């Protein structure tokens, strides 16, 4: 690649970051994949519920046919979700619900073609589905990948465990694929095989694939849309940026990253969890990425960090949420919630929504002093991160899809 071309791509990356562009093919009130429309866990909506509880704000709960750590996604008035069930967790479910009523629109069931052994905490419905503007993609921990139209028509299917015979993560694969323009990007890292693949949306064929260092890894990539979409691929050894449509490597930053929590972008910076949270300013035209700051006060746990209104948030394994300024990483406050948390926090309307593994909900409003923490109890195990779309906050448990909205007729 010429220096000029590289500079053009770098400029495009910077423009995309500055404008907050992630996917041009979705509406702002959609939640089309892992951590929402900008892949940062933040919704730009207002009018969201001030609390998540069964008495005041529950709009509906829909029964699910199996477990899942995958998050719900919401697109065009439909909520899509995956689940797995069966004695060996070999049955894979993809479901669509009407977003307003919770009525099931369709369900498709498939068989696992990869291994299903995993840690008891997880299951085969662990990666979050994704929507690229035209197609729904459902990847399972068995490495079965399905593409549908919105009505449930199967468009294509790949058994990646049979395409790549050594793909196997018997702890339980969970990295979520993310949409690229007209396709999908996935990190498939296991001890016995590891690669990144970009799939062509219409055909399901590989646009490109790139080998990666072998080792189990659960974090998800980020795709920055724009003139030249860029894939940001985290790994235990750092961050690799590639041209999303061609796979061409653009630059690499070396440093230790967490294998579970995923990075987020915001304000021209990527915030990468690990032993320390690293704020890396992404390269402007002709420059290299620059570490703005890093701090071990925002250590990673299972939950991924959140960046909202000039502040970075991390929830640790003890259930403490820590807030730091994005300017220098200086810790501003901490609040003890009740852990443990597997779900990552999401935010909308200025509020932060957290759900712990026991199904206890916490809604924080960091804009007011003292910070309010509204609590609720769902009474079911929750390991998946919430989603926000069209005024509703969605939470999926092991058994149900919950939809919460501000009470009708009340100020939200």
């Amino acid at each position: 690649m010429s220096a000029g071309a590289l500079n053009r791509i770098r400029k495009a990356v910077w423009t995309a970051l500055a404008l907050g562009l992630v996917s041009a093919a979705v509406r702002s009130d959609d939640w089309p994949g892992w951590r929402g429309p900008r892949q940062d866990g933040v919704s730009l909506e207002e009018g969201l519920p001030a609390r998540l509880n069964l008495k005041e704000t529950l709009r509906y709960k829909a029964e699910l046919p199996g477990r899942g750590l995958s998050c719900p996604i919401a697109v065009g008035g439909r909520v899509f979700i995956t689940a797995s069930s069966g004695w060996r967790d070999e049955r894979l479910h993809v479901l669509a619900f009407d977003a307003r009523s919770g009525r099931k629109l369709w369900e498709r069931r498939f068989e696992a073609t990869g291994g299903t052994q995993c840690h008891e905490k997880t299951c085969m419905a662990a990666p979050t589905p994704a929507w690229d503007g035209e197609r729904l993609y459902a990847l399972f921990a068995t490495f079965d990948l399905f593409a549908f139209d919105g009505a449930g028509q199967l468009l294509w299917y790949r058994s990646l465990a049979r395409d790549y015979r050594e793909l196997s993560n018997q702890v339980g694969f969970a990295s979520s694929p993310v949409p690229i323009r007209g396709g999908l990007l996935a990190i498939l890292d296991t001890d016995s095989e590891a690669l990144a693949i970009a799939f062509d949306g219409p055909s399901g064929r590989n646009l490109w694939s790139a080998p990666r260092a072998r080792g189990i890894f659960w974090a998800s990539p980020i795709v920055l849309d724009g003139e030249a979409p860029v894939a940001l691929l985290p790994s235990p050894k750092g961050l690799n940026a590639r041209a999303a449509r061609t796979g061409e490597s653009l630059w690499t930053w070396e440093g230790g990253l967490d294998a579970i929590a995923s990075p987020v972008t915001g304000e021209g910076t990527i915030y990468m969890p690990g032993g320390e949270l690293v704020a890396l300013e992404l390269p402007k035209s002709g420059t290299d990425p620059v570490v703005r700051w890093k701090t071990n006060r925002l250590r990673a746990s299972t939950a991924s960090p959140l960046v909202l209104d000039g502040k970075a948030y991390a929830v640790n394994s003890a259930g403490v949420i820590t807030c730091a300024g994005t300017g220098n990483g200086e810790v501003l406050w901490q609040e003890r919630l009740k852990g443990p948390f597997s779900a990552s926090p999401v935010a909308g309307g200025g509020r932060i929504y957290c759900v712990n593994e026991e199904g206890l909900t916490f809604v924080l409003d960091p804009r007011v002093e003292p910070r309010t923490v509204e609590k609720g109890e769902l009474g079911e195990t929750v390991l998946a991160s919430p989603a926000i779309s069209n005024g509703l906050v969605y939470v999926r448990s092991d058994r149900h899809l919950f939809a919460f909205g501000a009470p009708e007729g009340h100020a939200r």
Partner: protein
Amino acid sequence: MKTLHALILFPLSAGCAGLRETGVASDLSAIRSVGREGSGNAEASDAARRLSSLEASRLTEVLAAFDGATPEARNWLRGVVEAIADRTVTEGRELPAKALEAFVLDRSRDGKARRLAYDWLLRADPRACDRILPGALDDPSVEIRRDAVDREIRAAEELLAGEQADEARAAFARLLPFARDRDQVERIAKKLEPLGETPNLTRHFGFIRTWRLAGPFDNTAKKGYAAVYPPEERIDFEAEHDGKTGKVRWVEHETQDAYGKVDLNKAIGKHMGAVAYAAAEFDSPHYRVAEIRAGSSNAVKIWLNGELVFTRDEYHHGMDPDQYRAAVELRSGRNTILIKVCQNEGKEEWEQDWIFQLRVCDPTGGGIS
């Protein structure tokens, strides 16, 4: 004029029907032709879209296409069956219960297709299980068999709860040979033991307990997984080989574990960064299809009669008796099974296991002794 129309239109409509029939067969063929890495997906996608618009009365034709299909094609066909059936139910129309039941009862059909048909049959007729399950204890579909066994376990447990111990013991004992899934087998065995029965689970599952072992060979930096040591080239139980710490000879070993677990740390000695081979001879009275199922915390390779049938380069991610499965063909007479078990150099406590277990079973999971 009407007659003229009829004369013109009849051949046309008959011709269209013929084309339609050809189209369904052609579409099913397109789906069955999908290959690896997405090859054939474009044709299959078009075919699936057309097939998904078929009436529910055609469901069994799609289900029949499962016979001999690859796992990829089966999932494509599932997508079609689910679309047709789901649409039919959503629109409040009836599924073809009689045809589905006939398909379920036809054991010559693909087991996974039969189970799918059974699931939709229950949606149409929830009482169908009362007709099908009592005769399904020996069903070749392990998923249908599981439901049949579960139903009988609950019946036997009711006998036990009703203090009919003799009847319960007889019911559990009669049931055990049909059970395949470990949870069900263990549930039955736990009921039988207090009733004075001691099931032989080693034989039930077909675990091999007697092995010849050779090792350690070198696996420093995990390089031994790819290395070809002499046992992979030729098994000679009298031979002596250069090992990691000196000369290596084959030694006989019999594990006392009911599930055939061989602890190599005890059988060969504690070694890190090491490879061990285990060989067993298995006599089959005739040719038959079978499965080799193995579990290990370590990276493994498995050969049957010199042919590599399974590989997995993964360390310390748990162990389960049916963790790894390889469909194989046993030849009449003596068969030789060889498993290579690679230990890495991990320092953590949970990385110290060097262990495997292996069984030979029929495709449903029933042990072959």
